[in-house]
């Protein structure tokens, strides 16, 4: 059942005394088949959940790596049908829960979100949908039992964090943005991340996952005692770009290292 999927991911990781590891890939980059293969490599490395990004022409929350990945996918004519295909395949071949990250305009262009549900998506991450916007998309997602994952940022006030805690969908986690900035690798985890996690923990009962700027095992271990999960995107995509044909093997090892580093 989709509703319990995200919850069981965090429950299982907590029982193992480690962070849930959630790799992020852009659908169709470098190709549909490769995205699926890389997701399988993530699963083999011990990933708990796969996050798939819908390539968008104007990704304002993303840094150079994911911008370039989105552009490569769009240049290869990756559209709705291809994204649905990737989601379906990733779900089927990995057996893991799959979250869809999409900018709002793409979702607004779908008359019906049913095909996402049918493709096995268990939740939505919408980087340009903030908490207080009374968007119809939330109603449509809820009608399908698709939780919308809320964001928290270092700039979020205590009051906003409490509001996130009050309004969060039952099966969701909070996506904690580790820094002031867009996605992309950073040297180290910022002090701001730890401060945010502490403030969020005091006000939110749902699991906390950290994303943006998580570059590798060191960053994961730096947050392992403060969070419940990590999202790793740009570092993974950079690795795939560097490794080319050998990417799957490298990705499996990288994810395994992340899982290992997440043990408390």
């Amino acid at each position, binding site marked *: 059942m989709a509703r319990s999927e995200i919850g069981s991911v965090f429950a299982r990781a907590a029982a193992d005394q480690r962070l849930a590891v959630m790799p992020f890939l852009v659908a169709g980059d470098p190709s549909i088949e490769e995205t699926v293969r890389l997701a399988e490599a993530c699963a083999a490395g011990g990933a708990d959940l796969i996050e798939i990004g819908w390539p*968008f*022409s*104007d*990704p*304002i*929350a*993303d*840094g150079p790596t994911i*911008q370039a990945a989105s*552009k490569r996918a*769009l240049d290869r004519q990756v*559209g*709705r049908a291809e994204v649905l295909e990737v989601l379906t395949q990733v779900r089927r071949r990995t057996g893991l829960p799959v979250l869809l990250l999409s*900018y*709002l*305009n*793409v*979702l*607004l*262009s*779908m008359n019906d979100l049913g095909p996402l549900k049918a493709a096995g998506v268990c939740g939505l991450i919408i*980087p*340009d*949908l*903030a*908490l*207080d*916007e*009374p968007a119809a998309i939330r109603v449509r997602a809820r009608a399908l039992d698709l939780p919308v994952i*809320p*964001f*928290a*940022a*270092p*700039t*979020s*006030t205590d009051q*906003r964090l409490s509001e996130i805690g009050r309004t969060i969908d039952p099966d969701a986690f909070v996506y904690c*943005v580790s820094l*002031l*900035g*867009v996605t992309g690798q950073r040297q180290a985890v910022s002090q701001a991340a730890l401060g945010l996690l502490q403030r969020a923990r005091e006000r939110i009962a749902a699991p906390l996952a950290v994303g943006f700027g998580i570059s590798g095992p060191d960053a994961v271990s730096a947050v392992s005692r403060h969070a419940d999960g990590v999202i790793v995107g740009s570092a993974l995509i950079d690795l795939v770009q560097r490794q080319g044909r050998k990417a799957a093997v490298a990705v499996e090892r990288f994810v395994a290292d992340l899982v290992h580093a997440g043990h408390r």
Partner: protein
Amino acid sequence: MPTEPDAGGHFGEFGGRFVPETLIPALDQLQAAFSEAMADSTFLAELEYWNRTYTGRPSLLYHARALTERIGGAEIYLKREDLNHTGAHKINNTIGQALLTRRMGKHKLIAETGAGQHGVATATVAALFQMECEVFMGAEDVRRQSLNVRRMELLGTRVTAVESGSRTLKDAINEALRAWVASVGDTHYVIGSVMGPHPFPKMVRTFQSVIGQEARSQILEMTGRLPDLLVAAVGGGSNAAGLFHPFLDDAVAMVGVEAAGEGLDARHAATLSRGRPGVLHGARSYVLQDEEGQILEAHSLSAGLDYPGVGPEHSLWKESGRVRYASCTDQQAVSALIQLSQTEGVLCALESAHAVAEAIEQARRLGPKKTIVVCLSGRGDKDVEELNRYLEAHRDGQI
């Protein structure tokens, strides 16, 4: 139809705040600072002081008699925003936002620019108020508007060429938003049009409304009555919103003119005519997009109109029917620019020429004894090189 947005910045079903969570507190802070400032007579007096002594307001409302006579129709009046310091209406907004920035205790400015006029206006106030400034500009626009790039640099601003996407205004805004997310603690993003997340559309329109307020009292003084028609170009829509808003409750017709580029069935920037509602750059509004919600690249010879979005208040005005939105091709704009230049000795910006073209057409249609006020939003010096390239390429054409 409401003339102000609700507390969340919604103009009917348009507007709002569709941005990453990181920016929300900065928007709350800006909203609070803006509301307080507009209720503070000291702030309003300071804004008026700089508008009068620095920008040179009020700008002239000029009766274009020669052009009127040549066309033989309605009387055409030009609201001469091109005579403002820096040569366009953009400075009305940047002075207001710079004063707000100081009020919020921030000391760095970033901005996007298309034609470079908003970039120059931001660089200008940054110099005036001694703030650090960085302007993001699409690489294609850097090429088209090299004069304005040099102007910004001479004013002490760093100009960053944006190489992503269509390398025009849309991409400059993406990059400015990304830069703002990373610097939001000490930096204010001076959005240059009536677009973006709340409170920008309302705030920019408020600072630009000085255009319509002046035009209203000037035309009453000159003709003893309100005009029959207002005409302004619409890219994001700030000069149009500034001219139109003070007349919303009057029996005055209004036309916003979008860029039809090479034609509505070819490459264009006619967002309200050919787009559909969506979310781009922080607000719900009309957007040029494909069926799957990917944003399309706009096209206009005029860099300032080359944008696939539009301010949310214009979307409301379109839906309510209060304002009619027309469009004008590159060729019609160039032709109007040359006609105005050679009858009145006024070389206007390519953006403004779109409004002039529509005004000429409407003057013929309305006939004598009617009056039209056209917003001449900027001067054309910046466009001379691009115009030369265009005329060179179309030497055998009709122009």
